[in-house]
């Protein structure tokens, strides 16, 4: 674990187990370990990324940190306060934003949504108006604030979520996939807003699926998979995991599962991931640097329609794929 200056968020061996039931007459209880002994620290003013595939335990971890879930075991402290014992004090000092369209009062205007939460966060009445105006300006909703939220686009809702999350000027902010489903221009604006939070000295925990987002925003990153942290470090540290690799991108159309399996087992192939892009499936093949695999791979793809082929240097996303694949 990389040492951090004055830890604002301290997580130690955090675990969370869910119990779910299946069946109607013969009910069977199933225990799911969503988070399995996670530990990390976030320093003051740091923008920390928590990356992982769906179901990896990111949201469960955040829900424990924002006091909505009680850990099964382990401890979590925010600004030295225990998230279970001092939950009310923790709530005063944190803001949080969950991705998605829900979670706002649809029949109220953005202004009234913010006014209501300003009351709940005990923002002094005299400060409410200027603060709400400044936030509406910051998230680009000025001029639309009196419209009902039900008419807002996804991007506008996300920006309103962010404004609500920092309404009470919390020193620590948790952002759970804040740009998910937002169009590229809107997502870029949101990233600029997130960056401005860090510039304002706030400590931010960000979860995202978008590697370029994590790469450009985060000071440090932890990769979580199946409830465990499999790597932690700066984006550069993580990229170094695949520094000795090269990546070949092969665009295919209608590739069969068996062909992918054959490629996966081909000599020299470290890992393969697939990206769906419109009609195409883009294979991202990692192999040792210096190993010329392109011709071999293309030979194995005989009978499959192949489009663009390119070799490139590995990115953070490749490091992420390698980490998640290794842990699988």
């Amino acid at each position: 674990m990389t040492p951090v200056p004055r830890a604002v968020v301290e997580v130690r061996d955090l675990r969370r187990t869910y119990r779910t039931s299946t069946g109607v007459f013969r009910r069977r209880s199933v225990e799911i370990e969503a988070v399995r002994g996670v530990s990390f620290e976030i320093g003051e003013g740091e923008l920390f990324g928590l990356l992982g595939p769906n179901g990896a335990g990111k949201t469960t971890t955040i829900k424990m940190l924002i006091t909505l879930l009680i850990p099964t075991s382990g401890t979590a402290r925010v600004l030295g306060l225990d998230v279970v014992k001092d939950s009310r004090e923790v709530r005063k000092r944190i803001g949080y934003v969950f991705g998605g369209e829900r979670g706002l009062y649809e029949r109220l205007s953005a202004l009234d949504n913010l006014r209501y939460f300003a009351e709940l966060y005990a923002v002094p009445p005299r400060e409410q108006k200027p603060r709400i105006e400044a936030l509406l300006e910051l998230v680009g909703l000025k001029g639309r604030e009196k419209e009902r939220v039900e008419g807002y686009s996804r991007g506008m809702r996300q920006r309103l979520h962010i404004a609500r999350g920092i309404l009470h000027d919390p020193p620590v902010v948790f952002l759970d996939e804040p740009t998910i489903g937002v169009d590229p221009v809107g997502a870029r604006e949101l990233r600029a807003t997130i960056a401005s939070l860090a510039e304002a000295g706030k400590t931010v925990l960000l979860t995202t699926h978008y590697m370029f987002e994590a790469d450009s925003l985060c000071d440090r990153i932890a990769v979580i998979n199946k409830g465990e942290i499999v790597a932690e470090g700066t984006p550069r540290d993580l990229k170094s995991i695949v520094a000795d690799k090269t990546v070949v991108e092969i665009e295919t159309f209608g590739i069969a599962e068996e062909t992918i399996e054959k490629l996966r087992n081909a000599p020299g192939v470290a890992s393969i991931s697939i990206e769906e892009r419109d009609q195409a499936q883009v294979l991202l093949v990692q192999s040792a640097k210096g190993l010329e695999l392109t011709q071999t791979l293309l030979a194995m793809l005989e009978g499959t329609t192949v489009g663009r082929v390119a070799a490139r240097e590995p990115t953070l996303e490749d490091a992420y794929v390698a980490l998640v694949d290794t842990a699988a």
Partner: protein
Amino acid sequence: MTGARIFFVGGLMSYRALFGWLSPWIFIPTFLVAPIFQILLFVYIGRSAGVESDKFYVIGNALQYCAIPCIFAMSNTIAGERYQKTLGYILATPAGRLPLFLGRSLPVIGNGVFASAFALSAGGAIVGIHVPASSIASIALVIVVTSASCTSLGLVSAALGLRVRETATLNNIVFGLLLVFCGVNVPLSELPGWMSFIAQGFPLTHGIEAARRLANGQSFGSVGGLIGAEALIGAAYALLGYQLLRLLEWQGRRLATLETA
């Protein structure tokens, strides 16, 4: 100051947030027209059976109708948050739970008072009952107290909404129980002993009796005990509802059921 603002300002805003769908097209048929139908139905049944007076049915049904907004709307203050996926957001704020949830009861009580008062006035005018002018203010107070005690029962249902989704179904059953047990259309003395015994623990029972006596010309002082009993029962349900809220919120955090149960 913060608690007071959450209670008054927050309570009103949350009512707007959760009941913005309550347009006049829904409000008028539900809270103003439907109780008149209920009153007329029981008045005509009563007339044909020749049992109780029109006044008995008008007052019983008008007061009982406050249970619709009071129980259903109060219950929806949690169920509605769950539906809009805002429950997690409000529970993760530092707002004290007492002003946060009790503040939501004020507009609900106002709604109940309006529904009952309208039903009593309009229903009474349609069937032609006479209430002494000197009793009107006292009856108005009884309506307020009865609406408050029904809202407290709604708070219990709201709290259960932290654990189960089916509170609307539960509320239908509660509404039926109040209709049958509380002497709305059948005097308590005519009900089996165990039913009139249980009715003593329900909201409405004492309020309806107090309103009937006032409408028959008895003094406010003579029904003070009934009004006090109605208020006490309301306070007991409010306390139970608040404790349930705290318990089930904690349990929801422990069992991860706040957003999924």
